[in-house]
């Protein structure tokens, strides 16, 4: 396919791998922030092509994985209400809360529907004026603009029966949290390309790079992108630089997408948010601002906040922060599988544990 095959070109991959081998003289630990990159790395076996000194650890960039249990439980309780049509992206269906998942809610009579865009959910609200349509707004800065637009469209159309269950999270505070963690061993970052397509990389990333002394390379998702990102990052590390660089320049402009950013500012406020397995990160999420608060499903349905404990054995938090790899978990592939996941990284296709499991990394190998 045009614009894609060239980024999966074996010759370009080979030449990038050769250059990475040439420039690497010392061990380096890099984190790819986004789950899409993790998936690509494991799917194409990219990490196995790298020099042994380069270790890739997987970041917190899987929105499904970091959605807190409390939020999932709230979603499941709202979705179970008879007046509600609960619209969601497909990958949220199997994510376990403390009691059930959306498949379970659906099986017991909940009206749960898979949509491919938040505007599909707005359409549902238009078609079913007698029902309450709730869209589960999960994701990073990438999906937030479309969700913000959906609220605006519903507002303009006077669709009082539409609401958002907002669980948006933001990448830069997560990078800050990883760098500040006491066990941190990440020396350079491949930042999430699509997040930067929206937000750009000139506002928050340079400060992080300088403050923590880490190179940050805005990186795409295809094999050529990821390897090119690794090369740029290693080149910086080898020469003692810590700058923000843009590998994904065919998609990402320095200032991002101003229209999308303006829409986000209009609809959302930046708030503290809890990340599953990590805890509350200050200023790391979006919530609907006062003007659009009426579209907040949590308010509309007054779901009580019920704190719940994670399965004790699950090390998802450590995996999401890059401290441990999936294979280092004693439950990996035995008591925790995609069919019966203990934690969310085993559910979402972008979750590090699921990616390792899908591509049958053996526990020993996965832990190496």
């Amino acid at each position: 396919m045009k614009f894609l095959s060239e980024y999966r070109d074996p010759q370009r991959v080979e030449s990038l791998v050769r250059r990475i081998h040439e420039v690497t003289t010392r061990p380096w630990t890099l984190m790819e922030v986004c789950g899409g990159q993790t998936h690509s790395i494991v799917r194409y076996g990219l990490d196995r092509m790298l020099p042994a000194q380069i270790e890739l650890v997987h970041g917190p960039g899987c929105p499904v994985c970091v959605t807190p249990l409390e939020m999932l439980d709230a979603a499941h309780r709202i979705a179970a209400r008879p007046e509600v049509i609960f619209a969601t992206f497909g990958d949220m269906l199997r994510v376990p809360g403390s009691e059930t998942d959306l498949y379970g809610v659906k099986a017991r009579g909940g009206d749960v529907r898979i949509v491919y865009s938040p505007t599909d959910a707005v359409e549902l609200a238009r078609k079913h004026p007698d029902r309450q349509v709730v869209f589960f707004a999960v994701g990073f800065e990438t999906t937030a603009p479309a969700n913000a637009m959906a609220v605006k469209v519903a507002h303009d159309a006077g669709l009082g029966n539409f609401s958002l269950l907002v669980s948006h999270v933001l990448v830069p505070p997560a990078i800050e949290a990883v760098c500040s963690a006491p066990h941190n061993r990440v020396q350079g970052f491949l930042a999430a390309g699509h997040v930067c397509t929206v937000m750009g990389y000139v506002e928050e990333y340079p400060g992080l790079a300088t403050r923590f002394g880490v190179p940050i390379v805005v990186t795409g998702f295809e094999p050529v992108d990821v390897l090119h990102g690794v090369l740029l990052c290693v080149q910086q590390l080898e020469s003692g630089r810590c700058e923000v660089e843009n590998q994904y320049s065919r998609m990402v402009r320095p200032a991002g997408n101003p229209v999308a950013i303006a829409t986000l500012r209009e609809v959302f406020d930046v708030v503290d948010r809890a990340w599953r397995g990590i805890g509350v990160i200050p200023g790391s999420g979006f919530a609907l601002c006062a003007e659009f608060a009426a579209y907040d499903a949590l308010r509309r349905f007054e779901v009580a906040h019920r704190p719940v404990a994670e399965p004790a054995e699950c090390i998802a938090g450590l995996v999401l922060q890059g401290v441990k790899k999936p294979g280092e978990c004693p439950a990996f592939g035995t008591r925790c599988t995609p069919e019966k996941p203990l934690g969310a990284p085993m559910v979402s296709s972008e979750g590090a544990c699921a990616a390792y499991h899908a591509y049958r990394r053996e526990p020993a190998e996965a832990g190496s």
Partner: protein
Amino acid sequence: MSFGACPIPIADYPVVTLAHGGGGRLTRQLIERMFRAAFDNEWLAEQHDGAILEAGEGRPVLTTDSFVVSPVVFPGGDIGKLAVCGTVNDLAMCGAVPRYLTCALVLEEGLPMELLWRVVSSMGATAKAAGVQIVTGDTKVVARGQADQVFVNTAGVGFVAAGREVRPGMVQDGDVLLVNGDVGRHGIAVLASREGIEFETSIESDCAPLAATVQALQAAGVELHGLRDLTRGGLGTACVELVGERQTYRLDEAAIPVRGDVRGACELLGFDPLYVANEGRFLAIVPERDAARALEVLAEHRPQPDAEPARIGVVDRSAPGRVVLRSVVGGERPLDLLSGEQLPRIC
């Protein structure tokens, strides 16, 4: 395909009612005017409780399958065509010549009679094309909401001649894996039509009967060590299910044909085309010496004119029990069964 006018007078019964499943006059009218008209054969004409069949050459082979696809009509086919192809193909994958099918329908009250006629006449036309007879059947009607328009079950009987049986376990080291065309069309066509997703080109299902192709391979003297139709779960699942404990299937991702528009849709929707359903594609595992001839036969029997058969891999013992895919960039990864499902109700 044109189906002619619905033989049940629309003015009388524009939709299926519970009475059509009651066993009385209306049930009879359905059987007489619709099923017998569409399937037209001596067994149905007998109006007996069952069909007394002629034995064919070799041993009998029996299979059954239920079809619940939504939507009932999709680009390139409908549930009726699917129900015939699915069962015919299961028989063909055993090396058998399909002969007889049953047809059991579960209809939802309120189903438009025109739609039922389309499904039934499509079954008749596909059965004729595949050389099988629909010899007995059953119709039940359930209340609105208790089924989704129409569910179809077909059982099939075929006969496999001595020496032509194909079973798992016959595959040998050094054998070659072939597919009879590009993968992923059916799943994407159904999804796109269900969700109202439009692509620049229209993707039609690859749904097609495959028995004639298998018979042509046999007639050309190709030794068939393995056959598997690539339905639910697609090529990836078929390989994982088929691979023996001691053997390894090594697939070359770059050699697996996927049409550009299907690949694009998969990229967009986050699907792996290797796990998307097909209804007119199969994996043939043959000895190296027969591979070229088999590809020629497959090229002569394309389910669609643009379906390009391909050699996609080999069998060895390098990683016992595994299916290993060499990715387009040269890295390798094992293929496994999917944990959930990529698409709901595609067959």
